[in-house]
């Protein structure tokens, strides 16, 4: 027993080292290539330039402004889309006639990628905030609605029949049967929604915006400021990771609550 556990514990430092090895090698390579000027500055900026750009943007207050605008759009759009999606999906799962009326249109719209709606929404709402929040809400709506719908339909039929026999009113039915049975799948839908919302928002900001991380990158591209573009790519990655990781953490917490 003891021998097994030590044998298992031994490789951990080596693991951590190999985990960091590749990223560190890449960073070293990046520094080396730019220092030795094997590739022109316009094609690959040096890491120091990127860090300088972060400082410069931060000093000018631009970075905070862009971040604030992007995150505000993301959360406004995500929450409105997710709430509507959840209500819609659960209702469609619970009510047969609602399903008959709404499912065909819902499925038809679900086939169309959110990004494809951007030009249409620009024509209807102009390039202001409304269109960005609506496109994010649209991206958030469908995965949550689908998760809610599927999970409600996955509730064993006899649970609902028992509730019907006892003439259980709607709210206790939702609280005691629907919510516990559907939370895991809905959470997965929400996580998917959040990462899709973020991608669509970045795309919308790249296409038409006066502020936001996407607009900052697009401006950098037009001005040939690769340092700013790299800062933008890095930030979108970090935010995407943080959103996904945060949600997974939330899911595991809630799963523990459920089993506990």
């Amino acid at each position, binding site marked *: 027993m003891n021998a097994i556990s030590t044998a298992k514990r031994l490789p951990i430092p080596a693991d951590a080292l190999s985990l960091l090895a*590749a990223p560190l090698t890449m960073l070293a390579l990046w520094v080396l290539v730019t220092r030795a000027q094997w590739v022109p500055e316009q094609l690959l900026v040096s890491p120091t330039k990127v860090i300088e750009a972060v400082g410069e943007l931060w000093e000018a207050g631009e970075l905070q402004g862009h971040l604030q605008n992007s995150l505000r759009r993301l959360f406004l759009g995500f929450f409105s889309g997710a709430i509507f999606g959840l209500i819609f999906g659960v209702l469609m799962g619970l009510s047969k006639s609602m399903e008959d009326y709404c499912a065909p249109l819902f499925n038809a719209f679900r086939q169309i990628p959110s*990004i494809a709606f951007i030009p249409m929404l620009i024509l209807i709402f102009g390039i202001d905030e409304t269109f960005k929040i609506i496109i994010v809400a649209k991206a958030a709506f469908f995965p949550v609605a689908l998760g809610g719908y599927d999970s409600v339909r996955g509730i064993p039929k006899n649970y609902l029949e028992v509730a019907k026999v006892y003439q259980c009113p709607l709210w206790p039915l939702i609280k005691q049967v629907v919510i516990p049975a559907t939370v895991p799948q809905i959470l997965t839908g929400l996580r998917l929604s959040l990462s899709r919302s973020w991608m669509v928002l970045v795309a919308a900001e*790249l296409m038409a915006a006066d502020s936001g991380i996407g607009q900052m990158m697009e401006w950098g*591209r037009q001005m040939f400021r690769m340092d700013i573009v790299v800062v933008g790519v890095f930030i979108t990655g970090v935010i995407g*990771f943080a959103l996904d990781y945060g949600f997974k953490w939330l899911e595991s917490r809630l799963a523990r609550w459920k089993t506990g």
Partner: protein
Amino acid sequence: MGMVFFKRLKGLVLPLALLMTWEMASRQGRAYALTFIPIEKIGRSLIEITLNGELLTNLLASLGTASTGLLIGGTVGLGLGSLMGLYPRVDKIIGPVFHSFRQVPLLGWIPLIGLWFGNGCLAKTLVVCLASFYPMVLNSYAGIRNIENNHLEVCRVLGASRWQTYRYILIPGSLPFIFIGIYHALAFSWISTVGSELLFTAGPGLGGMMQTAQMAAKMDIVIICVASIGIVGLLMNVSLAKLSGHLLRWRSTR
């Protein structure tokens, strides 16, 4: 029979209501008619761009970008994912880099790719390659990792050759996952084709066509493009589901 018909009818209520609201909005005056193009005009534009070949040219260009990207990105992804699944050492070295690159939303790479490769065909294809690369790596990796260990042990005990292990265990065992990977890669390749065409407007393609139409405030063309994108996506999903159902039919008999 009657029930099914009635159900279909119910499903038509909302789309028809939507169309009627649209048509009514288009008759509220000239300003409205610019945005809410009358349905009849959309139909006429559809006939026009179908007959002069504009729709077909752009559709084929988009399909070309999507399939080239899918083929290249998918193959490379399949290779890398299998290597990572088969050799833990490769997984340890490449895994962290792969997962950190994956955090950047796909279209977030577009400005950087634009700086490096311009805004033409190459840049678009590269975005699509990346889009189909990620799901193939993840799923082929999962496919190999999910193969039951005792199957491999049986191979070892019976002295199966390397080729036999691949032929009878590794390939059939990971095939279902690989199909899930192809399924995702196909969907992402289509989305990213449209996205990259919207952002790199040079050259033909449905996305570029839609963007040009938006600049010229031609709502009818935009709507036709959106509908075509949806229909093509749907056809891709349906045909792949049929194909994988056919190829994996041996599974259900277990």
